[in-house]
């Protein structure tokens, strides 16, 4: 997988994850990169949004393929090489959506907007270097829950420390 994109029906980008660098030339300026990313995104959203229903979920794009699947108002897109298995990627997308759904409890676009970082965390438990790392939803859910609880404990601790400071300074 070269990249993952979530695009809303209005063409707004909700999540981007790049596993391959996106220009041949090694450009260091992030400005340039941003512009290019935006172009890739625009190009793609135009391409996908224009397609009606019932068509196949694959779009050939440059020498790659974009596999997309629509869930309510969101398009989940993953870009793969010519010789990758398109049908499998459809399953990967669905698998990601199911995990999101389980995590947020019937996920909607707003969840992903306000908790975009969580969507990223979950994606990172699913894919590394553009390859699938786990096929068990349960394991992913368990790992995410464990890390979330680490955060909670840290918050409580810092909360209690700042309380102590507040009390000590009284």
């Amino acid at each position, binding site marked *: 997988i070269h990249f993952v994109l979530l695009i809303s029906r209005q063409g707004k*980008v*909700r*999540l*981007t*994850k*790049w*596993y391959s*660098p996106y220009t041949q030339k*090694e*450009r*260091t300026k*992030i*400005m340039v*990169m*941003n512009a290019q*990313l*935006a172009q890739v*995104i625009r190009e793609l959203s135009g391409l996908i949004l224009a*397609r009606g229903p*019932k*068509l*196949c*979920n*694959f*779009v*050939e794009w440059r020498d790659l393929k974009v596999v997309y699947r629509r869930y309510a108002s969101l398009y989940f897109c993953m870009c793969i090489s010519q010789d990758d*298995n*398109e*049908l*499998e990627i*459809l*399953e*990967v997308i669905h*698998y990601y959506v199911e995990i999101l759904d389980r995590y947020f409890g019937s996920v909607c676009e707003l969840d992903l*907007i*306000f908790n*975009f*970082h969580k969507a*990223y*965390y979950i994606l*990172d438990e699913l894919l*590394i*270097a553009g*390859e*699938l*790392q*786990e*096929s*068990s*939803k*349960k*394991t992913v859910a368990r*790992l995410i829950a*464990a*890390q979330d609880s*680490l*955060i909670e404990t*840290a*918050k409580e601790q810092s909360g209690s420390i700042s309380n102590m400071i507040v009390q000590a300074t009284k």
Partner: protein
Amino acid sequence: MNPFSSGTRLRDMIRAIRACKTAAEERGVVRKECAAIRAAVSENDQEYRHRNLAKLMFIHMLGYPTHFGQMECLKLIASAGFPEKRIGYLGLMLLLDERQEVLMLVTNSLKQDLNHTNQYIVGLALCALGNICSAEMARDLAPEVERLLQFRDPNIRKKAALCSVRIIKKVPDLAENFTNPAASLLKEKHHGVLITGLQLCTDLCKASEEALEYFRKKCTEGVVKVLKDIANSPYAPEYDISGIPDPFLHIRLLRFLRILGQGDADASDCMNDILAQVATKTESNKNAGNAILYECVETIMSIEDNSGLRVLAINILGRFLSNRDNNIRYVALNMLMKAITVDTQAVQRHRVTILECVKDSDASIRKRALELVFLLVNDSNVKPLTKELIEYLEVSDQEFKGDLTAKICSIVEKFSTDKIWYIDQMLKVLSEAGNFVKDEVWHGLIVVISNASNLHGYTVRSLCKAVQTSGEQESLVRVAVWCIGEYAEMLVNNTGMLDVEEPITVTESDAVDVIEIAIKRHTLDLTTRAMCLSALLKLSSRFPACSQRIKDIIIQYKGSLVLELQQRSIEFNSIIEKHQNIRSLLVERMPVLDEATYNGRRAGSLPATTSASNGAALNLPNGVAKPAAVPLVDLLDLSSDVVPAPSPSGGDFLQDLLGVDLSPASSQSGTIQAQKNGTDVLLDLLSIGTPPAQSTSSTSDILSSIQDNKTSSGMLERLSSPSGLSAQASSPAGGSPIMDLLDGFAPNLATQEDNGPAYPSLVAFESSSLKLMFNFSKSPGNPQATTIQATFTNKSTNIFTDFIFQAAVPKFLQLHLDPASSNTLPASGNGSITQDLRVTNSQHGKKSLVMRIRISYKVNSKDVLEEGQINNFPRGL
């Protein structure tokens, strides 16, 4: 404390941005937030750093610049707590990528985190490394990752495996270190570790031949057994997807088997049974099952031959192809493309279905199917297939027509057995989709028409009919206009009637009508109209009765704002008015265009006549059409841009133009007077295109007439005047083809002028202190090899010592340097160093020489280094 730094919460910022109604409003909010974050960054505020970074990530996603947040990521990663690190790594992966140098700064933090006691922190570091590491980081951190492949927690092992995948992609040399630990991952039970381990092994095999051999020997049986177990495993809710246990694992196992089996009969043998089982037993009513079948088919097609399995695989594809789901049909077409190399017959059986797919409403399917049909075409089925495709062309979507016409044209060209069929099909394509046809296609068509002398009449009549119904198709109009200009009398007289034809009556003025309509149709472009003018000039000679009417049409363009049209109009008008006596000669029919030359040019190489040595060109007998065909093929190339004439003086220009007409010029250059040369030029410019033998004989006639006729030589002067315009506009050819030719023939001209070497000498390099000349010579019979004599002269007043010349060339060239005549170069040009270079050009005729040079020497025992690149070698070396 900075009053902004407490700022808004992430949630509030997102809300504020979402509430914006216009883009300007949104930019305002973002600008304010960014200002606050920058302030916090410069204050080195710690409390809200993670929140600010989260905001920045959101802003980044909206497409705004966020580079100022990069260092914040690094700071968060370097802090001790898990929450800070988590958001820091996320920011790192989002805001940076491997191309940023800032990334190097994180190497140390990564190294520490990879050794952290908290396994979740190790996990974060592995994830970041796997997603964005650069080659340097991969090298630095590979030992840590390798160690983590044996970590106690499987969740770390799987992350480390994928991280290794990235490392090996970045630095393939490291593959060897990972081979053993990767093999041991294949023995695990944990699905995550198995999946990632298989992925790692697959990538290792791609990176290293030894790894592939190793896995083939040690792991084939094990992997087959794992696949057997998983395929037969009972229902396991944790991994189940629509009734299939862990399709992801299935797919990766099949993919790895494919790599092991490819090119190895024993390994392939070992996996036959399980592949057959997967191919027959997998449920195909859900996507997950089909994904496995698809992968299985690909594996069967790739491993060593087993005809039973292949039949099974092709049958699966047949089932896919008739599936109602477009996704399945798409992958079936995709796979049939690969299968065609293995078993063409089996794929041919599905031809009808595939042809149906070309007409599908789904663009992706159409595209795949069209490519497949293209591969399926052979001599026996080309006619029905072309018929189907052309019929479909009439109803296809606009955006698909381009692809479709390109494919039909190349099918027709590749498989045409008889010319009439070729011409018929091309006319149909041009009538349907002439606006989508590439230039070389209609150029090619004209070449074929020109060669089919028995079909001239038939073709021009068919074109005339076609253009009346499809006059908006640009390239159809161009071909029609050209043919009417050439073969007008056949149109009117019904010459060369074929049995299949119905006779039509076209009067002379009808023919002029066709062209007049074309020239006045304003959707058509400059080239077409310019061609129309030339055709009209030809008609005026062929149909004297219409001459006045044609003159009226031509004269309308004398005020054209387009220079090309204006000039043609004025010149053609003056030919019609004042030069009746030479008109018929000027517009004589073009000689047959040489197909071999044209095809050669299309293939990107210069025609043989130009690249062959000078001697060969001289040996061509006069009257052979070959040399003439070169300029004529160029004449078709109307679309190229106008190139200014290279030489400033009229006399030189004439000399240059001489090169256009190769054989008479080179055989008689000594005797023909300048005046006569000029006439040749005139003839060439106007593309009379008579074969050279004829032109030389006719030249003398005209020569005498010109000497009597002052106006005529006046015109001649104008034609040969230094401005590039006359060359550009006075012939249907336009200026550029002649310029092309000039390039191609430059070496010949050099020979004619001073009997010197075949290629002019070249100042290859010149600096304030040094000059380097190249002299070229070629040994006959070996056009690829060139000997270059390099002569160095010292322009300064100091002696150069320890003089060394080095040169480098690209891969398609081979270079051999002979020893130099000396390593000391006397001052002020009092002597020189010579050195021979022998170059062999493996792309002779396609690519010109290029060379990078470096010259080092000592002046007053101080080192001097000069470098340069030479791109201006004469063509044809």
